């Protein structure tokens, strides 16, 4: 550093003409160029792939429209099996055997024999909510309605498949007939059990009479205001969760979740053990009495599904995860805990059927990342971690394709609250 400021003897004299040596382009420039080129190509391929997908989707939709308008072919049986296995077999069993003490059989069911495919479609469109006697045994369960989950063609295919395969019927039901049934069923409650079905369909075997419809719970005026208009810093629940509690995007469906689960979540938002800015703000202003009333309000709410598969997930993979699990990555079937068809098991296991797919995928990611950590035993944390992004989207989309849970009947609500407390909240340790 000594001679830095001195006149450098090596400097050219004034007459020197500067020239550029023919230097090679530095290696890094090549790298950049190559990298950018690769990137460009990949991007091109990717976009063309997704346009292709979108094109296919649109084509499929067009086809569906065409198919829905076209008269049903003689042969809906093949796809009927698929629709049945994906939507009905979860409860009624692959062979239509039902489940003893809980779900009536379809195989050789005297109801199905007497009413045929048309009656099956009528049942699928509205669901059943009262006692029904099948082959001499009385069941008092809740059959979901598929009006918001399946289109006319799918219901026609499933109903025809059931009638033909399990009772040997010759006739199926056409998509047009199902469209008529859909029109007639619009706005109707579920069938109030076998008695109402028998009144509408001549020839059914004797049915138990439906119990007196439970008096509507006296709607708490305070709650109605909170839900629809809000009060002070409690913003209206409906403004985000929808008029029917059906949710949208990452705002969850609330309709039909167990009351104890809803109440626990609201307390957790309040106390900060579950984190979400909007909900924390809303929940902090709620009293305990309001929380209980809001939980009841949503638990008994019946609402059609507001969810559709929308994350480009692989539905077959999703169905596999939900019904069988993927034990090679340590994930048991979702339905072993969340109940067959994802209807939940009160009080601790929320329903997943018809939940918003973006919300489900988001929650699974939050468990994986540790930002949702208020679950009993941390049961969901390992599951969230084990699923990769594609699996989360797949299972979320499959769950979105299911019919919504028939809401907790009002009569059962009080009974449930008195003997079932939500599990003590435990924080998982990660």
């Amino acid at each position, binding site marked *: 550093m000594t001679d830095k400021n001195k006149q450098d003897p090596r400097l050219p004299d004034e007459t020197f003409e500067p020239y550029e040596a023919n230097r090679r382009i530095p290696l890094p420039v090549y790298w950049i160029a190559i990298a950018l080129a690769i990137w460009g190509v990949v991007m091109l391929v990717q976009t063309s792939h997704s346009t292709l997908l979108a094109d296919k989707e649109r084509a499929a939709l067009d086809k569906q429209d065409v198919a829905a308008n076209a008269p049903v072919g003689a042969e809906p049986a093949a796809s009927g099996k698929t629709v049945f296995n994906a939507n009905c077999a979860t409860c009624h069993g692959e*062979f239509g055997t039902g489940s003893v003490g809980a779900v009536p059989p379809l195989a050789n069911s005297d109801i199905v024999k007497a009413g045929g495919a048309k009656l099956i479609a009528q049942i699928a469109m509205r669901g059943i909510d009262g006692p029904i006697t099948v082959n001499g045994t009385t069941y008092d*369960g809740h059959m979901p309605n598929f009006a918001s989950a399946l289109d006319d063609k799918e219901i026609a295919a499933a109903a025809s498949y059931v009638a033909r395969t399990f009772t040997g019927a010759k006739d199926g039901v056409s998509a047009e007939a199902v469209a008529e049934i859909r029109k007639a069923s619009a706005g109707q409650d579920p069938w109030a059990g076998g008695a109402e079905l028998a009144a509408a369909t001549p020839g059914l075997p004797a049915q138990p009479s439906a119990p007196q419809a439970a008096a509507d719970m006296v709607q708490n005026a305070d709650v109605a205001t909170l839900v629809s208009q809000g009060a002070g810093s409690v913003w209206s629940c409906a403004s985000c969760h929808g008029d029917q509690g059906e949710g949208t995007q990452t705002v969850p469906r609330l309709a039909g979740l167990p009351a104890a689960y809803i109440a626990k979540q609201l307390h957790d938002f309040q106390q900060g053990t579950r984190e979400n800015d909007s909900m924390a703000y809303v929940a902090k202003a709620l009293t305990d009495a309001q929380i209980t009333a809001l939980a009841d309000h949503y638990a008994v709410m019946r609402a059609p599904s507001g969810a559709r598969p929308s994350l480009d997930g692989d539905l077959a993979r999703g169905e596999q995860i939900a019904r*069988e699990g993927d034990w090679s990555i340590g994930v048991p079937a979702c339905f072993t805990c969340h109940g067959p068809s994802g209807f939940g098991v009160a009080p601790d296991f929320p329903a997943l059927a018809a939940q918003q797919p973006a919300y489900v995928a988001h929650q699974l990611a939050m468990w994986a990342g540790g930002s949702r950590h208020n679950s009993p*035993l941390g049961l969901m944390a390992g599951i969230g971690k*084990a699923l990769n992004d594609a699996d989360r989207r797949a299972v979320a989309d499959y769950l979105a394709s299911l019919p919504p849970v028939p809401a907790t009947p009002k009569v059962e609500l009080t009974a449930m609250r008195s003997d079932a407390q939500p599990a003590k909240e435990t924080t998982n340790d990660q």
Partner: protein
Amino acid sequence: MTSNHPSDTPPPGPDKPSRGQTAKRVIYAVSGGLVLAVLGSLALDYGLAPGWLTGQGNTPTPAAKGDQAKLFTPPDVSTIPDDDFGQSVRRGMAIFNDTGTNAHDYVGNALNCSNCHLDAGRQAYSAPMWAAYPVYPKYRSKNKMVNTMEDRIRGCFTYSMNAQGSPTGGPPPYGSDVYRDLQAYFFWMSKGLPTGEKPEGAGFGKIDKPEKEPSLDRGAEVFAANCAVCHGKDGQGQKDMNGKQVFPPLWGPESYNWGAGMHKVDAAAAFIKHNMPLSEPGKLTTQEAWDVAAFVDSHPRPKDPRQVNGMTVEDAFNKLHHKHDGYYGKTVDGQLLGGGASPQSAGAPQQDGNSGG
């Protein structure tokens, strides 16, 4: 920098000769970074990045198990053939998963095969069927005879499924389609395994002896903290809104009887250690697994169907249970265990004590 030699080519600028070097370094650094960023984002896009980086690893839950690498993978359900044999396999699977419905006449409790043999009988260390099928027929000291697979399944119905409380009062008769379909299912899932060799993953796996004697009090705490969410505070499991049993009862009239393998504390401890809580196997310590197994197995349950013809619990204990690590014949909370918890079990059992469960 002082020792720079004059070069033949003229320096690029009038000032410091080191300037070219710095510029070069900057270019290298920037481009290196760019290349890394581009490659990195490509790797991410295509899912090539390792799980620990993205936080969504597909790593299997680590469990206190043996050599995972050696475990057999049974075939996928979608590969069940679409023919008559496949139909039988599917019926077998349906019996396995909803036994109370599909083998209704022979089931005397609220359990399914798949409650203890997880993943429809495919999960290693929860006594998978692919590990059992290739080692039968086999001599069993439980009934002192060579057992065929049919004998063995018959034992499961007799004890674990408490057939004495079923509509027919006993297990499926020899030759029943129930055995046929279940065996077709097991056979199908064992494809490729050598016969006569016990594969890794068989049974419930090993569990070390506990440091301290199992304690019912500690077990009760472990149960309340880790099991009750699913199995209920009273151990009776939980049903869904339609009345379908979703979580199985662990004791009482709707659970396995005193002759079932699971009544032995060591068997239950191994099962629990390797499989429970569901989705978090390995969470419990060895001591906790023993404690809670002892707690579960110290409750009343349906009587041992071999205790017939006026045999007292004491006789049965001496004849059948003295070698077992269990609570049969012991008095817990003032109650002699082994008398039976089943309202139905008063009726005379109609089986011959010929098989094992």
